[in-house]
């Protein structure tokens, strides 16, 4: 009877994680075929198909897609941390009666759909959008700035979408810090910035690491934002995977990309766990 509560998560894990994962792995060593669905599972006669993984290794297009995804996800993670830290600090230090409202403001963007928010950015950034119209009207620019479909627009959209993922864990870790610690630092002669750098920041690091990871992991596979706001050259792994699946209907290569992405994302998580364990 006592085991029952454990059974449920185990079932959850088996049904919703292990089984789909196995399907994807099997797909990644399947043979492409003309049919419905467009692949043939590996069999005893044919063996497995190593071509999808070989293709990932030999075509630099895929290497660049992974590299681009890591850079974009890492950049987004850092941008989110940079914005989330002062926000979380402000939340912790705000008067308790304001805190629920401020927290609600952080979460509010989640209440509207993801696509309308991206649509709003498109409306702001495009050539005849609000920003360009304003700047042209003020006479500051002679021709519209190409804001949309650019790397800055991509990072803007990514940071906007993932910022709450960074604020919440940081807020959680900062709110657990005992304010007495900073008072003690002040009593011992540390000025505000010194106390922040030597006391608050080191104690908030695990929270910051969690915040970074929470942004980095989904951002690495993101394909909607690069597609809608980014430049065509932003062929990141999520977008490439989508293309393999839908445009080229090469399900085995798409599955191989998914497996490779998963492996790539497991590495930082394992590293973090190591770090935590040593602490």
């Amino acid at each position, binding site marked *: 009877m006592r085991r029952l509560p454990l059974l449920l998560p185990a079932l959850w894990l088996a049904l919703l994680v292990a089984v789909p994962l196995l399907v994807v792995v099997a797909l990644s060593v399947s043979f*492409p075929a*003309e*049919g*419905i*669905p*467009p692949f043939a599972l590996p069999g005893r006669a044919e063996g497995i198909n190593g071509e999808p993984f070989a293709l990932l290794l030999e*075509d630099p*297009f895929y290497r*660049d897609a992974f590299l681009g995804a890591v850079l974009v996800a890492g950049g987004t993670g850092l941008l989110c941390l940079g914005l989330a830290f002062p926000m979380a600090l402000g939340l912790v230090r705000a008067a308790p009666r304001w805190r629920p409202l401020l927290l609600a403001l952080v*979460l509010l963007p*989640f209440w509207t*759909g*993801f*696509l309308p928010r991206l649509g709003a950015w498109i409306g702001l950034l*495009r*050539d*005849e959008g609000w920003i360009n119209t304003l700047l042209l009207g003020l006479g500051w620019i002679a*021709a519209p700035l*190409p804001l949309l*479909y650019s790397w800055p627009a991509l990072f803007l959209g990514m940071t906007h979408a993932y910022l*709450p*993922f960074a604020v*919440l*864990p940081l807020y*959680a870790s900062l709110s657990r810090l005992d304010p007495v610690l900073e008072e003690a630092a002040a009593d011992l002669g540390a000025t505000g910035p010194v106390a922040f750098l030597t006391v608050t920041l080191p104690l908030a690091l*695990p*929270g910051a*690491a*969690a915040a970074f*990871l*929470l942004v980095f992991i989904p951002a690495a596979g993101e394909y*909607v934002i690069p*597609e809608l706001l980014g430049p*065509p*050259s932003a*062929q990141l792994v999520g977008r*490439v995977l989508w*293309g393999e*699946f*839908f*445009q*080229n*209907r*090469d399900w085995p290569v798409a599955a191989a990309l998914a497996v490779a992405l998963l492996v790539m994302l497991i590495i930082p*998580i394992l590293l*973090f*766990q190591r*770090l*935590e364990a040593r602490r």
Partner: protein
Amino acid sequence: MLRRLLAATMCAAVLLPSAGLFPAAMAQQAPTLNVYNWSDYIDPKAVERFQQETGIQVRYDVFDSLETLEGKLSAGRSGYDVIVPTSEPTFARLIRAGALRPLDRAALPNWNNQDATLLRRVESSDPGNRHGAIYLYGSVGLGIRPDKVRAVLPDVPLDSLDLLMKPENAKALAGCGIAVMDSAIDVLPSVLRWLGKDPNSTDAADLRAAEQAMLAIRPHVRAITASGSILDALATGEYCVAMTYSGDVIQAKARAAEARRGVDIAYVQPKEGAQLWFDMLAIPADAPHPDAAQRFINFLLQPEVMAGITNEVRYPNAIPAATPLVDDAVRGDPNVYPTPEMLGRSFTAEALGPQAERARSRLWSRFKAGR
């Protein structure tokens, strides 16, 4: 650490609304008919009339790209009875995969209303025209804003792919915006034709030449995106040259005129010869209501129904008897109804083998990435 991560993930998962799409409409009790067509691609009155005449309830669902259609069909059991795939690549591929049900001509008395010449051109995708009737067709060309183009290129003729493919022209137009639809099969053949090669060439040297020509203009291209997005952006004046489907340009032109924001749009059918495509009425092999599907297709193949659709969506249909019933402005526009001479110079894309298709998709990825 992991526990903290998990807790935060759970709360994020609850807070974050998933952007997933609703599953396809599933079969229901008769008499219903599940139609899956392109968005903005029918005369609503036609569906209404069909429902009144037959008592069959139509459940109408739309897609905005062939990838969406093929993705849903590839999983099997889509639940749709009538779909509208484009001749190449999707229609041809579905036939080869055995995913379409051959039409029963005996149940389609209106079949012979279709133009025999146009039907013959679809035969490269569907030998014997066994699996599909022509719904609408069109060409691939350039949607342009003539005033903006004229402002930077006063003397360049506006009837040729030179406008986009000559690097000096593309460079001059980069400032006001160039877009290319994200579809190798709809762009590459025209580039090959512009180079004077066979549009369906699989020759490595030809493909290399096409790739070089495309990479030469790549720095000046602002967007490579789905044709549906190009339609919207073209209508709001985002681009001054966009390579896309004829009817999308004509729809964008109508929308821009309605908005009255001074955006004038024109369609250029390349004089080098334009790629023709056909959207086909077809029935999935596992359609739950194949008889109702046949009745719907037969209903659409009537001249007055087709004329209504063409008036609404501004794509030509393949029923000659419908032409006199189409509005003068639509019928007389050579960009909607190509002249016989334009048709003579046009070509269709052909199915390539898997090897050639992969080469083409690699080429296209390199074009998008710009290296």
